[in-house]
């Protein structure tokens, strides 16, 4: 482990999927860390590789997946070198996942009490009575009302929001160190989504788990994440703290994502959109994969892949625009606004530091 604060370190991960048409290069050299107790959001469009990344961590890839290279270090051990049997001991125990669709991720023929208690019986060898008693506690914790009588109900007797609470209860029953949440609220209404997100934050404080949060909803990211990684075409193109990504983004793809989402106070005739569609990963383009859709593309983007350029100690972006020789460009209007806000925030922070001395560690992390 490079850093003792890291609970998970993914290095140079490359995953291909074998198909009749050839190898689909779904993950192309992805590296990131997950720190203890933090929420790391991975954002990107469908097909950008965010779900494949987490499925590789869980060892749940389809049989045609080929892990070409890389390592996933968890507590000093490489998960990619584990046997299927060893992974079974880790999944649901150390690393658990909340799946996207609460309608299909529960067994329709099994009482929910048994589904929640199952990880305890499997991983801890707990007896049924004790496991069910703990399942009941967990149901109360995730806010399922009237838990005593509902423990014997089947999934179809619950609403979507309640089912997602059950899925969360299953994932958390063993107090996992790492929790992967793959679009946990995409299928839910906004009011229910708000409840579930609040619940996740509360539970994270209670059992101090680290969360990898996968979503395409930047609004949710803004409220949940400590750090953000933006993925495009199987690569991470920018990562930083949530403030750095939202107020001082550097990659044109991040600019596009942020401006194509209307905020409640945006108006005007044309919504900024990213033209075109993501590239075909059967045959990824040379150079920067985003170049074809990028209004700010430089000549070098089509020839050579940009390395990560450092913006701050915590903020890196893979775009040639950050190269010292690159021309100065003006980002879209909405991004300029965000950067102004960032400058103001930095200023306020500097002033606060001058008057009250250094900001305490805790505050900085938030």
């Amino acid at each position: 482990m490079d850093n003792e604060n890291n609970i998970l370190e993914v290095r140079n991960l490359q995953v291909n999927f074998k198909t009749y048409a050839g190898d689909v290069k779904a993950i192309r050299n992805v590296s990131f860390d997950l720190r203890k107790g933090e929420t790391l959001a991975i954002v990107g469009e469908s097909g950008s590789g965010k779900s494949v990344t987490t499925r590789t961590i869980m060892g749940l890839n389809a049989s045609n997946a080929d892990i070409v290279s890389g390592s996933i270090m968890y507590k000093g051990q490489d998960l990619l070198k584990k046997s299927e049997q060893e992974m079974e001991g880790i999944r649901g125990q150390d690393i658990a996942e909340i799946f996207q669709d609460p309608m299909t991720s529960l067994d329709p023929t099994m009482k929910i009490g048994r589904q929640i208690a199952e990880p305890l019986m499997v991983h801890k060898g707990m007896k049924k009575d004790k496991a069910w008693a703990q399942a009941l506690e967990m149901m109360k914790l995730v806010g399922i009302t009237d838990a005593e009588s509902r423990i014997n109900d089947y999934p179809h007797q619950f609403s979507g929001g309640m089912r997602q609470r059950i899925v969360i209860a299953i994932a958390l029953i063993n107090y996992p160190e790492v929790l992967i949440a793959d679009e946990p609220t995409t299928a839910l209404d906004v009011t229910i989504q708000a409840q579930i997100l609040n619940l996740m934050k509360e539970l994270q404080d209670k059992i101090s788990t680290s969360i990898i949060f996968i979503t395409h909803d930047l609004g949710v990211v803004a409220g949940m994440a400590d750090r953000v990684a933006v993925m495009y075409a199987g690569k991470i193109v920018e990562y930083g703290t949530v403030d750095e990504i939202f107020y001082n983004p550097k990659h044109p793809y991040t600019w596009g994502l942020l401006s194509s989402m209307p905020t409640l106070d945006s108006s005007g005739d044309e919504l900024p959109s990213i033209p075109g569609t993501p590239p075909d990963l059967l045959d990824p383009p040379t150079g920067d994969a985003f170049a074809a859709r990028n209004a700010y593309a430089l000549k070098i983007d089509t020839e050579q892949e940009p390395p990560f350029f450092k913006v701050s100690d915590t903020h890196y972006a893979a775009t040639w625009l950050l190269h010292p020789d690159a021309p100065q460009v003006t980002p879209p209007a909405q991004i300029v606004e965000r950067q102004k806000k960032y400058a103001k925030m930095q200023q306020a922070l500097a002033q606060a530091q001058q008057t009250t001395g250094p900001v305490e560690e805790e505050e900085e992390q938030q």
Partner: protein
Amino acid sequence: MDYENAEKILEVKHLKQYFNVGKSDEVHAVDDISFDIYKGETFGLVGESGSGKTTTGRAIIHLYEPTSGEILFDGKNVDSFTSKQERRDFRQEMQMIFQDPYASLNPRMKVKDIVAEGIDINNLAKDDDDRTKQVEDLLETVGLNKDHSSRYPHEFSGGQRQRIGIARALAVKPKFVIADEPISALDVSIQAQVVNLMKKLQREQGLTYLFIAHDLSMVKYISDRIGVMHYGRMLEIADSDEIYAHPLHDYTKSLLSAVPVPDPEFERARQEIAYDGDQENDGKERHLVEIAPRHWVRAADDEIDMYTQRAHEASLIHD
């Protein structure tokens, strides 16, 4: 929108749509709602799942027999068409864009046949050449090209399929288009493309939209006016800017407070407002009341003063 001289294209009057009537599981999916849509505007319909917004859309295009109430399209009751021709004209003038671009296109039909189906049924093409030309023009209008016409749906991405769905709806030159969650199955960057396309088509062809969605920020962006539904009832109708800036009904406030905003500072300070749905079920008689100019709120007689007070505080009324 200039509402002073605007003409109504659709009037929904006391629409009730019940299912399983008389059985123990009777559902009041839409329970006595009334609203109008004006020519050339986009009317957004928002609400949570189960609020009845989709049922309302389907009842308007007459996929159901309404339990009671009237739907007038261009002044004519859609429930009382007598001749086949009248019904055919109605189907031509009102079209629908569906939510799921994967399920709503027949996988065994070529794109040109999907798009031309309405043209064929309504005999809108003089001959085969004309039909081909119309299809190619339509594909071009929605940002595809004519080479796409002989392909099958599976060869397209989600965004492209939704464009095909839009081309199909436009093929019969409708006046009124119901778009039921047309972008919720698409990626963020593609959503913006489709919304821009819909806006462009509206400008060029003078279409009227009923835009049904649960993504409140997108609905606000595309709509001129918005209606908020909850438990089959219409709770508030107002101009989209106004309803977002100054919601008067508690439910609208609660719904808006739950919308995640891509701004971390805002998110850290966010306070959700809870809404107790039971307050609607106290047995009081409620109906939509125009509290401020063109701002309607569902209220009981003794609640009107409270809402008027709120409107005053928000400076929606001055006197």
